């Protein structure tokens, strides 16, 4: 529960000043030559086997770049302004900070334990990273490193932040709960029983409901965030991993079913099961809600699916073992 400040010099690999200067110099020399096309939405797909990050242009579904990350990267979260992508390396024990425009790794922030799930605060000033081994959540300042630690429970997995930035939800996998962490005090302020082994956690755009994918009970818990209670449990396919929301529907990757389960967010009725590649994991929706994107871990593919017709639109090759666990889509304004 205690917040803990760690000496800054032990965290940052590269002094902040040199980074700023480097970026300024680059910008001056190269102008916008390295910049990605303005307005293009992109996906940042972590490839755990090949240890890198594939950047996919979502308008063409073409891989545009591959960045070496190392340390078996798994979790990813793009900041709300689209400027940064943060990637966890649970085996390497670090968080990589990626400049999305320049498509390069700015720095690595060392973290203890096994950093996996993560989310970025709406204002971009904190990255919340779960340590799956030591029951804790780190608050990371992207420039400085770890600034606080909260005890949350056994095997914290998926992380999400409410749109107002006030509350952080953490799936506490081995306790079958979600924990509510107050962002201001960085202390756990309550928890709630959900299905067995919740992994991914997703919050809707209004901050009214959260959805956990429960790996062991093959269902999704729907949580009313104001009341802090489970309002529905939706049966899905085998080994659900994560939930995406679009067009009044929930889309759930079923790892053992090679499918995406689709259900109605109002009635909770099952609508369809879309066949995808083997071991689908990370899933996300485009900003306009028209398209769903899925990383297929075994088959090394990243698919796009129409959210209304449920037709598969396109498939992109990734590196080995794409997981894309987290908010992997960069939506440009």
């Amino acid at each position, binding site marked *: 529960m205690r917040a803990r400040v760690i000496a800054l010099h032990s965290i940052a690999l590269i002094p902040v000043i040199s980074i700023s200067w480097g970026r300024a110099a680059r910008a001056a020399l190269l102008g916008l030559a390295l910049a990605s096309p303005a307005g293009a939405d992109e996906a940042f797909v972590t490839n*755990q*086997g090949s240890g890198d990050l594939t950047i996919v242009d979502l308008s063409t579904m073409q891989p545009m770049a591959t960045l070496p990350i190392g340390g*078996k990267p*798994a979790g990813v979260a793009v900041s709300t302004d689209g400027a940064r992508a943060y990637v966890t390396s*649970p*085996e390497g*024990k670090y968080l990589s900070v990626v400049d999305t425009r320049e498509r390069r790794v700015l720095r690595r922030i060392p973290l203890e*334990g*096994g950093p*996996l799930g993560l989310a970025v605060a709406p204002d971009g000033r904190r990255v919340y990273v779960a340590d*799956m*081994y030591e*029951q804790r959540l780190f608050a990371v300042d992207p420039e400085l490193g770890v600034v606080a630690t909260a005890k949350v*429970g*056994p*095997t914290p997995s998926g992380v999400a932040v409410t749109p107002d930035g006030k509350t952080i939800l953490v799936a506490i996998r*081995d*306790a079958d709960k979600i924990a509510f962490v107050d962002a201001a005090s960085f202390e756990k302020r309550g928890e709630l029983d959900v299905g067995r*082994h919740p992994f991914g956690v997703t919050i809707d755009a209004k901050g009214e409901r959260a959805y956990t994918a429960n790996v*062991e009970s093959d269902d999704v818990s729907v949580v009313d965030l104001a009341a802090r209670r489970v309002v529905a449990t939706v049966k899905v396919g*085998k080994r659900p991993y994560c939930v995406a929301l679009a067009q009044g529907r929930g889309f759930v990757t079923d790892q*053992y079913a090679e499918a995406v389960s689709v259900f109605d967010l109002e009635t909770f009725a099952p609508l369809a099961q879309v066949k995808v590649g*083997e*071991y689908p994991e990370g899933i996300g929706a485009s900003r306009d809600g028209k398209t769903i994107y899925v990383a297929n*871990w*075994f088959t090394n593919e990243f698919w796009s699916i129409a959210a209304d017709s449920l037709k598969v639109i396109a498939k992109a090759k990734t590196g080995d*073992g794409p997981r894309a666990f987290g908010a992997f889509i960069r939506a440009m304004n």
Partner: protein
Amino acid sequence: MSFVIARRGIVLAALSIAALAPSISFAHGPSRQKVTETIEIAAPAEKVWAIVGNFQDLSWLPPVEKTEGTGDNTPDKATRHLTLKNGGEIDELLTKYDAKDFSLAYRIEKVDVKILPVNNYSSTLTVKPQGDKSVVEWRGAFYRGFPNNDPPPELSDEAALKAITDLYKAGLASLKAKVEGK
């Protein structure tokens, strides 16, 4: 006062152990591994499937001494208990069965990592017709034997990959020899 603090310390230590305990049976490392092995067999797929498609008989896999099970080939019901020649035991559950496409999937429900250094193992066996020949594909997905960071070498990702790769290679070679009558 110091007595109270000491006691509280013991209680806290006990609580933290209890809190960790439930995670042990399901815990796994952070990075799932995968293996795909294939072999060509000079026999039609139907003939190969007649052997591979019987979930209740794994005698074609060299390390297996005995297969005992129930549920025939019914997904989510069929189980088998394998006794290995080295004395090890493995419990498995059939999760998919598609006789039309010659494919089945199963997962390990229980195994000692000393016998097979993996956790959360799931696997698919498929026989693909290639004219009057066939190709058998065996795919596995699993985590290493050690559930936490910094594994000992015998329970590392590499050890898990080697164990499964060796098993698939030996199994497929044995299956080929059996089907081709060599």
